[in-house]
C-alpha cells in the first residue's frame, strides 16, 4: 500500500471520527453524572438539521426572506444546533432527573422525535423532501491550512503527515480534539468534575455533603446537549454533505455510546475508541468490496462493519467495563 493512501485513509478516519468523538464526550458527561443518554443520536440529528437550516437561512438574500449575511453563517448554524440540542437535553433532564422517569425510554422518544420532526419541518420550510438547501462558501466550515503546511509538504514522511493528516481540517475537528484534554481537566482536576463524578457514583454522599444532586446532573446533561449540538453541526456544515439530509446521523449516536463503553468512560480513551471506529468506516468507504481470491467480501458487509464491530466491542472482548455505579437510577432524596 502506498504511503499516500495510508495518509488519505487516516485523514478520512479523523473526519469520520469527529462527530463520534463529540457525541461520545457528550455521553461521557451525562453518564458520569448518572444519566443514561440513548438520545445522543436524536440530539445530533436535530442539531444537524438546525445548523443546516439556520446556515441556509442566514445566507439567503434579504429579498428572498433570508438574513443576507455574507460571513459567519456557519457559526449562526452552530448556535442554532447547540440551542436545539440543549432544548432536547433539557427535556431528557426533566424526564429523568425531575420526574425520575425511565431514562432509556426518554432517550428513545427523543430519537424518534428528532427523526420525524426534522423531516416534517424541513419539508415545511424548504419543500425538498426534508433536505435543507445546499450550502456553500461561508455557510459551511472549510478546511484550515495550518502554518507552513505547503512549505513542509515535500519533507519526507513527516511532511505528508503534517500537510495531509494534521492540517486541512475544519475548525470543528480541532474543537472536538481540544475538547478531550479540556474534559480530562474538568473532570479530574476541578471541584465541578469531582462533584459530577460523585453524583454518578454515590449521589447520596453528594447530597449529604450539601450539594444539589439535581443541579449537578442538570449541568452534566446541559454540557451533553452542547456537545451533541456541535456534533450535529459538524454533520451538516463540516462534511461533504453540505446541508442536512434526512436521517444523516445514521446510528452514529449509538456507535458513540459503544465507543464510550469501550473507552470505559474516560476522555482520552474515548478519543482512541472514536478514532478506531472512524478508521473502520474509512476503510469500509474506501474498499467497497474486498477480493480475497477464494471469495469476494460483499459491499454490504463492509457497510455493516462498524455496527458489527460495535457488537464485538460491547461483547467485552476488551476487558470488563464498569459503568458509573448510579447510572440510570433516579435519585430519590430520603424523607
Amino acid at each position, binding site marked *: 500500500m502506498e504511503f499516500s493512501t495510508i495518509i488519505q485513509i487516516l485523514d478520512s478516519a479523523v473526519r469520520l471520527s469527529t462527530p463520534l468523538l463529540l457525541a461520545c464526550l457528550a455521553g461521557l458527561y451525562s453518564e458520569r453524572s448518572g444519566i443514561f443518554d440513548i438520545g445522543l443520536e436524536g440530539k445530533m440529528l436535530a442539531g444537524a438539521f438546525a445548523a443546516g437550516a439556520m446556515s441556509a437561512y442566514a445566507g439567503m438574500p434579504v429579498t428572498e426572506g433570508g438574513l443576507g449575511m455574507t460571513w459567519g453563517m456557519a457559526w449562526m448554524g452552530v448556535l442554532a444546533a447547540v440551542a436545539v440540542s440543549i432544548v432536547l437535553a433539557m427535556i431528557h433532564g426533566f*424526564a429523568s432527573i425531575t420526574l425520575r422517569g425511565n431514562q432509556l*425510554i426518554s432517550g428513545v422518544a427523543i430519537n424518534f422525535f428528532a427523526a420525524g*420532526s426534522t423531516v416534517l419541518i424541513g419539508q415545511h420550510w424548504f419543500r425538498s423532501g426534508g433536505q435543507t438547501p445546499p450550502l456553500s462558501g461561508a455557510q459551511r466550515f472549510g478546511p484550515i491550512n495550518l502554518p507552513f503546511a505547503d512549505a513542509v509538504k515535500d519533507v519526507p514522511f513527516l511532511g505528508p503527515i503534517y500537510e495531509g493528516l494534521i492540517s486541512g481540517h475544519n475548525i470543528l475537528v480541532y474543537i472536538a480534539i481540544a475538547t478531550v484534554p479540556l474534559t480530562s481537566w474538568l473532570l479530574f482536576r476541578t471541584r465541578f468534575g469531582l462533584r459530577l463524578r460523585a453524583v454518578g457514583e454515590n449521589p447520596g454522599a453528594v447530597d449529604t455533603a450539601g450539594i444539589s444532586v439535581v443541579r449537578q446532573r442538570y449541568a452534566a446533561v446541559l454540557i451533553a446537549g452542547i456537545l451533541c449540538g456541535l456534533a450535529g453541526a459538524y454533520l451538516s456544515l463540516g462534511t461533504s454533505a453540505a446541508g442536512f439530509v434526512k436521517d444523516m446521523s445514521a446510528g452514529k449516536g*449509538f456507535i458513540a455510546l459503544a465507543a464510550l463503553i469501550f473507552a470505559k468512560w474516560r476522555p482520552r480513551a474515548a478519543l482512541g475508541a472514536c478514532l478506531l471506529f472512524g478508521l473502520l468506516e474509512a476503510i469500509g468507504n474506501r474498499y467497497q468490496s474486498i477480493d480475497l481470491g477464494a471469495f469476494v467480501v460483499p459491499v454490504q458487509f463492509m457497510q455493516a462493519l462498524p*455496527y458489527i464491530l*460495535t457488537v464485538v466491542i460491547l461483547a*467485552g472482548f476488551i476487558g470488563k467495563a464498569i459503568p458509573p455505579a448510579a447510572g440510570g437510577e433516579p435519585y430519590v432524596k430520603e424523607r
Partner: protein
Amino acid sequence: MNKGLPKWADVVLIPLLSLLLAFLVSGLVVMFIGKDPIQAVQVMVSGALGKFGIGYTLYYTTNFIFTGLAVAIAFHARMFNIGGEGQAGIGGVGVAAVLLSVAWPHWTIAIVAASLGAMAFGAAWAAIPAYLQAKRGSHIVITTIMFNWIGSALIVYLLVGPMQAPGMVPETVGFSAGAAIPTLHDIFPAFDKHAPANVSLFLALIAAFAVWVLVWKTRLGYEIRAFGHSEKAAVYAGISPLKIIMVVMLISGGLAGMMAVNTVQGEAERLILDTVQGAGFVGIAVALMGRSHPVGVVLAAFLFGILYQGGGELSFEMGIPREMIVVIQALVIMFVGSLENMVRIPVERLFVRFDKGAA
C-alpha cells in the same frame, strides 16, 4: 408506587390523560407546520375507519400487535428489546426461505410452516444480543439497535445476491399460489377488495392470548415477572438470569418475526426490501401504551393502526409528510413513558385529597 390510587386510574386514567397530552402536543406540531389540526384529525379518522381504510388499518394493527407483544414480553423481564425492526426483517427472510423451498399445496399448511420460519429466524436474530447481555453484560439496547443495521445490510445482500429473482429488481421470485393466504375480503366480502388485511390478524390475536397465558398463568411467566421485579430476589429464589433473558428474548424475537407472515406472505407474496417500515419501533409505543398487557397491546395496536393508515391519508389529502406519524409516536412514547410522572403525581394528589374529603 401507586399509593391511594385505584387500579382503574392506574391502568386506564393515567395512560389516557398522557395520551391526550401527546395528541395535544402533536396538534401543536401540526399547527406549527401551518396545517389545521382539527381537519387533520377528521382526515385521519375518516381515512382510517372508512370502508376502504379499515382493511389497511387492520393490516397495520396486525403488525403492531406482533411487535407490541414482542416489546411487552421483554419489558416483563425488564429487557428493552429495541431490535424488533431487525427481527421482523429477518423473520421475513425466514418466511421467504420456507415458502420458496417447496410448492405448498394449501395455505393452511403454508401459513403454519411460514410462521415457524418467521419465529425461528426472528428468534435467532434476537438470540445473539440476548446471549451477549446475559453472559457478557453488553447493553441490549445498543446491541439490538446494531442488529437492526446489520440485519438490513444482510437483507440487501440477500436480495441483490443469493435470493434475487432473475432481473435487476431486489426481490425474490413470487411465492407459489398455494402459499397465498386469504385476505379479510375473501372471508368477509364487506372489506374492500384491495385491502391487505388477512388471516394473520387472527394469528396476532392468538399470539396475544398465548402471551397472556404465558405471563400470568405459567411457572415460566411467574419467573419472568419475578426476574423483572428484582433480579436479586429472583436469583435468590433459584431462577437463572441466563435462562430468563434467553427465553424472553427468543420469544420476543419470535413474536417480532411473526409480523413477516402478515407483510411478506400476506401482502407482498415475495420478499422485498424494507418490509418492516418502522413497525418494530412502533411496538415500543404500543407496549408502553398497553402497559405491557396483551389486551392493552391489542387496543394500542389498533390505535396506532388508525394513526398509520390515517397518517397516509394526511400526506395524500393535506400534504403533511408521513413523518408526522413518527412525531406522534415519539410524543406518545415520551408522555406515556418517560414523562408519565408528570400526570401521575398530580392525579395521585387529587385522589389523596378526594379520599380525605370522603373520609
